[in-house]
């Protein structure tokens, strides 16, 4: 990925692009609109949130400065840490399954099979649905009396497998994870598919001549060359599981039962709007952001540093 912006000297002189500052100016002009929008509506509110996190505020009356106390309270908040733990479990579980499944499906689809376009479209479709829709739909699928799953199990004679999918604290989180996986796996499949199609067939043919079997081809050619795509895919799912899963959890369980599906986001929103502890909620949000930013950016940096040209 060479980014030289290099036009040769003649052309540069011809178009008065001699100074690198002129180039830079053009660049800045092109970036300014996006930057302004971004700073005003994303960055500035973040700073405002930071400011609020140093106050005690119920959102309605006046704010009261309490310095770092909110952060102390957050560290002592058992439910917050439970929510973080749940977010972790969610993130790791969902990332593993989505990526492995996505890769697997991409491998399947990469073969010369009929109906692959249809299949690709079908697998990706859940990505386009609104979470409100998915939440209502799946809540009903999980419904103990009238839902699809329990009725299916009953019809197959597997009554012992019937569970309170969303009411049993031990499995509720996993039930919600299944929904997130259902929605997003198609997306990861497409990513991996793109990566697979970028690998030249010659590599495989050469390996076959050397007598390599399926597994050796996979591990020695496919995996290394998918490094870039894997990085993007993994990072997206990990980060999304921390800062983007509010809708799915909220619509399905609201964080219950007993906070077993409480994730960082639902707890933050609950603290803000139900308890009216806005300052404390902002402190939580800051902690979460810092953690995810460091983790995410580090991942991005390391995983994309040595990409193949």
């Amino acid at each position, binding site marked *: 990925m060479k980014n030289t912006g290099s036009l040769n000297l003649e052309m540069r002189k011809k178009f008065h692009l001699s100074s690198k500052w002129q180039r830079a100016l053009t660049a800045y002009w092109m970036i300014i609109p996006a930057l302004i929008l971004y700073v005003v509506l994303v960055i500035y509110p973040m700073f405002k949130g930071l400011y609020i996190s140093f106050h005690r505020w119920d959102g309605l009356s006046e704010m009261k400065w309490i310095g770092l106390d909110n952060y102390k309270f957050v560290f002592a908040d058992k439910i917050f840490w439970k929510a973080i733990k749940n977010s972790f479990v969610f993130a790791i579980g969902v990332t593993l399954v989505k990526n492995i499944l996505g890769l697997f499906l991409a491998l399947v689809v990469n073969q010369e099979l009929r109906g692959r376009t*249809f299949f690709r479209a079908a*697998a990706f479709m859940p990505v386009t649905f609104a979470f409100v829709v998915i939440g209502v739909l799946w809540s009903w699928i999980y419904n103990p009396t009238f839902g699809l799953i329990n009725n299916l199990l009953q019809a197959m004679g597997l009554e012992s497998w019937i569970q309170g999918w969303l009411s049993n604290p031990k499995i509720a989180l996993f039930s919600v994870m299944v929904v997130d996986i259902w929605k997003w796996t198609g997306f990861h499949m497409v990513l991996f598919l793109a990566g697979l199609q970028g690998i030249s067939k010659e590599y495989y043919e050469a390996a076959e001549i050397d007598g390599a079997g399926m597994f050796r081809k996979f591990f020695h050619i496919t995996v290394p060359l998918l490094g870039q795509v894997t990085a993007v895919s993994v990072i997206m799912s990990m980060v999304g599981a921390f800062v983007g899963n509010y809708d799915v959890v909220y619509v399905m369980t609201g964080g219950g039962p007993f906070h077993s599906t409480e994730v960082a986001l639902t707890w933050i929103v609950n603290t803000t709007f139900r308890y009216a502890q806005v300052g404390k909620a902002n402190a939580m949000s800051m902690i979460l952001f810092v953690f995810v*930013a460091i983790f995410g950016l580090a991942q991005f940096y390391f995983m994309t540093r040595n990409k193949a040209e």
Partner: protein
Amino acid sequence: MNKFGKKAQKSVAHLFSYIVMAVVVILTIYPVLWMIFGSLKSDTEFYSNIWGWPTNPVWSNYVTAWVNADMGIRFLNSIIVTVGTLAVVLPFISMAAYAFAKIKFPGSNLLFYFFLLSLMIPQGVTAIPIFSVVINLGLQNTRLSLILVLSSQAMGFGIFLMRAFFISLPKELEEAAMIDGCTPIGAFFRVILPLAKPGLATMVVFSGMAAWNDYFMSSILVRNSKLMTLPLGLVNYIGQHITNYPQLFAMLSIVTIPIVIAYIIGQKQFISGLTAGAVKG
């Protein structure tokens, strides 16, 4: 491995693949079909006939749902907000991404990572600060505020994706254009942009989806019922009419079907755009 063994292996692999594909298709399509079936059942059949398709399709569920939930207005609002968001997002992101991709300037990497930060920001609690900014701009309770906010939230991912896409385009193109007499800006509009269609298609799908499906920001920024979008109307409806599931499913279907259609149409472009972005990113 002899030829026969190889062929057999391939057939087994293919068979296995077909089975997998069939399973996945069922898993993804059936819930949606189930939703549509449910929307056409009567109240009692909804509970008694869980699996199959409706015996006497109750099309009036759609009419009732449409009328009761003011779907016409909501549809319009959703379209306005989504299209408006795209109108802002596409030019802003294309320009910025192009600059990051093709022009070497000081602070390029720093600014890029700065935009990437937006991917890490937790949803939810910044809603109130964002709302107060919106008030300061005098835009409270308007669709424009929703458009601007949703656009701002698309910046990070959009720039990331489009930049990767632009990088994948060979730089000789611009040089060729300029030899023919274009300015750099001209080259951008006449040569690069048309080639960026798949990338743009990707942006359209992602940002469009995000805008169409957004619930949380919309609920904070727009409270006037005449300005509400579909997801808001949906949640409102759920709050009001909890007993009538077929009608609720009809509503869900109304919200979902346009997206599905749009997706099916734009699918090819979109996936090839995603392809380029992922591989070269």
